[in-house]
């Protein structure tokens, strides 16, 4: 009765219930909101939270190495840092700038200038080496270091300096390839993996998350380039550039039996711009080898056929006259034509072969098409269709005019002669090795096609040997070794039309030793400042490179009779 009559008892209970309900209301609302967020906005909010809390760190984008054929590494990424300043957080400007100037070895005035030029944030120095980093890092937590920021980045380093840089190319501080091999194999060298999720605390301090993933399946690229061969090529090219001051220079070395490129030196040397694949030119007399090999292979001429040279003057068509001033004979055989580099002889042989057949052989030798090396910017040259050739066109193609080719195409054609008639697929990359153990072989020996018969190749070897022994290529001779090759001195197309008499491309292409050729070497000097010829400027460069390579591979002399007897004795007594 008392309870029923006591309004306070009833009211207290009711009030408690109301309070309880009110207290519950908030959690229920929160719960409802959570349910709504978890159920209907889950994906959106998760990604928002990830973005707010976590950083996917770029500094963990690893990049593979690039090696030469012997496993010597040519390019590697090293972790460095950039030092930046947020002006508004710097407490004591004078002290901080003094510290930076001293530690980074920079002038105080330079830093001050940057300070005045920028509104808030600016980089004081980039690519800071680890030793300097270790000096700066501890002060970041002190008042002196307030406002300083060390941003991790990568530096692509080349232990051999600029050697082969035109092949290797460049990669940026974010470890992405920009040119050359770095760009060609960017996806293999640097994949979008190994990104670590981490929380970023104050002052860029990293707090690693539990679900830290570390996958590294980037590949390392092994080139066919031999860094020692490359060194010989670059050294010889630098010397030639000094002596003859050409606009451009190229030395290319290939293994004729496998098609592997051992060295590719270019002048001027630019990141990822190898002239060996990108330069196109009219070859001149080095192309006579192709025309004559084609004619011999087709059987339209034989090696000892006399070719008429009467008057050393030949009118191909009305008003188009070719002259030979380098000999005084009225008849020449093929070895003699090649030895004196007769344009009349090569032109007549090309006409004898005919436009269609010559075109067939030119394309079979690989001219006019890219090589499948796929180097960025590779040119395919220019071989117009034979249906548009006039008689003059056919004849001039016989001695290397009216056709544009690349060094890699020409060296491939000479290698075909050297190896017995097979056009080989050239290779620049040997293999890619991935961190997980996978190996992707790239440089399988691949014969593209047989271009000429083995007998023709054999005959051409003798013809080219004769060029070096008795003809224009004498300066390519190497004591104790047989050398086959051909010189070339081609006039360049003038801007005013026709050919410029004082602008030349001088070249030499050859191989050694003849019976078991180990190296095919092409030397090109484009537009030397000093008037010169393939035999006087390019042939000695060939010799220099070949000597280095023969010593490198310890190739035994195949013409030991050429060595002096006392040298032989000396060797035995050693």
């Amino acid at each position, binding site marked *: 009765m008392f309870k029923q009559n006591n309004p306070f008892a009833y009211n207290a209970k009711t009030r408690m219930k109301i309070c309880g309900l009110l207290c519950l209301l908030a959690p229920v609302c929160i719960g409802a909101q959570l349910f709504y967020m978890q159920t209907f906005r889950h994906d959106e909010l998760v990604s928002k939270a990830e973005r707010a809390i976590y950083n996917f760190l770029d500094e963990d984008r690893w990049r593979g190495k690039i090696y030469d054929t012997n496993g010597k590494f040519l390019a590697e990424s090293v972790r460095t840092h950039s030092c930046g300043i947020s002006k508004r957080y710097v407490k004591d400007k004078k002290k901080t700038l003094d510290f930076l100037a001293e530690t980074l070895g920079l002038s105080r005035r330079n830093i001050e200038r940057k300070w005045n030029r920028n509104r808030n944030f600016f980089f004081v120095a980039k690519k800071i080496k680890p030793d300097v980093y270790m000096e700066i890092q501890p002060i970041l937590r002190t008042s002196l270091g307030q406002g300083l920021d060390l941003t991790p980045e990568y530096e692509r380093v080349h232990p051999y300096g600029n050697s082969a840089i035109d092949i290797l190319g460049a990669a940026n501080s974010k470890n992405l390839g920009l040119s050359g091999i770095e760009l060609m194999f960017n996806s293999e060298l640097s994949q979008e993996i190994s990104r670590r999720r981490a929380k970023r605390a104050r002052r860029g301090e990293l707090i690693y998350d539990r679900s830290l993933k570390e996958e590294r399946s980037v590949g390392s690229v092994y080139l066919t380039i031999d860094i020692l061969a490359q060194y010989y090529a670059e050294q010889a090219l630098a010397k030639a550039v000094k002596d003859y001051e050409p606009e451009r220079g190229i030395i290319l070395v290939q293994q004729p039996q496998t098609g592997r490129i051992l060295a590719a030196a270019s002048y001027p040397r630019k990141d990822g711009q190898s002239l060996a694949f990108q330069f196109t030119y009219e070859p001149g007399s080095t192309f006579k080898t192709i025309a004559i090999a084609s004619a011999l292979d087709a059987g339209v001429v034989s090696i000892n056929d006399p070719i008429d040279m009467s008057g050393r003057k030949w009118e191909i068509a009305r008003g188009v006259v070719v002259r030979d001033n380098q000999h005084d004979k009225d008849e020449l055989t093929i070895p003699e034509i090649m030895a004196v580099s007769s344009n009349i002889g090569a032109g007549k042989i090309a006409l004898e072969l005919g436009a269609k057949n010559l075109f067939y052989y030119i394309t079979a030798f690989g001219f006019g098409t890219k090589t499948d090396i796929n180097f960025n910017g590779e040119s395919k040259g220019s071989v117009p269709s034979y249906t548009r050739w006039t008689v003059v066109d056919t004849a001039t193609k016989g001695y290397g005019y009216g056709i544009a080719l690349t060094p890699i195409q020409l060296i491939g054609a000479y290698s075909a002669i050297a190896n017995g008639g097979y056009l080989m697929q050239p290779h620049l990359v040997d293999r890619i090795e991935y961190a997980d153990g996978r190996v992707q072989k790239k440089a399988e020996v691949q014969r593209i096609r047989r271009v000429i018969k083995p007998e023709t190749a054999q005959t051409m070897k003798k013809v080219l040997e004769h060029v070096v022994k008795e003809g224009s290529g004498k300066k390519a001779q190497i004591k104790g070794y047989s050398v086959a090759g051909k010189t070339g001195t081609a006039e360049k197309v003038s801007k005013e039309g026709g050919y410029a008499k004082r602008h030349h491309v001088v070249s030499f292409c050859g191989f050694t030793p003849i019976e078991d050729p180990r190296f095919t070497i092409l030397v090109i000097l484009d537009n030397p400042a000093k008037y010169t010829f393939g035999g006087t400027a390019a042939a000695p460069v060939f010799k220099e490179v070949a000597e280095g390579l023969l*010593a490198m591979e310890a190739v035994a002399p195949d013409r030991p009779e050429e060595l002096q007897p006392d040298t032989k004795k000396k060797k035995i007594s050693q």
Partner: protein
Amino acid sequence: MKLFGIVFAISVFAFGVVMMRIEINRSGRSIGKLQNEVEIKRARNQYLELEVIRLQSPQTVQQMAQEKLHLRPTPPQNVMVLED
């Protein structure tokens, strides 16, 4: 009492969770610091390796051989390979 017990248990649990998160963060920080240290030491090591390679490069070897020992590259015909 029962309610108090539940609230107390929840509080203890929440405290534990918070402590765990703090500990995880603390460990994360030190792992981050150690990782950084490892990276820096690795980079230092890389630079030293690079210096070794640079000193072994044909260019440096030839230069030093010529300057210090007055040697020059031998012609290929003077190279002898001794077989086993």
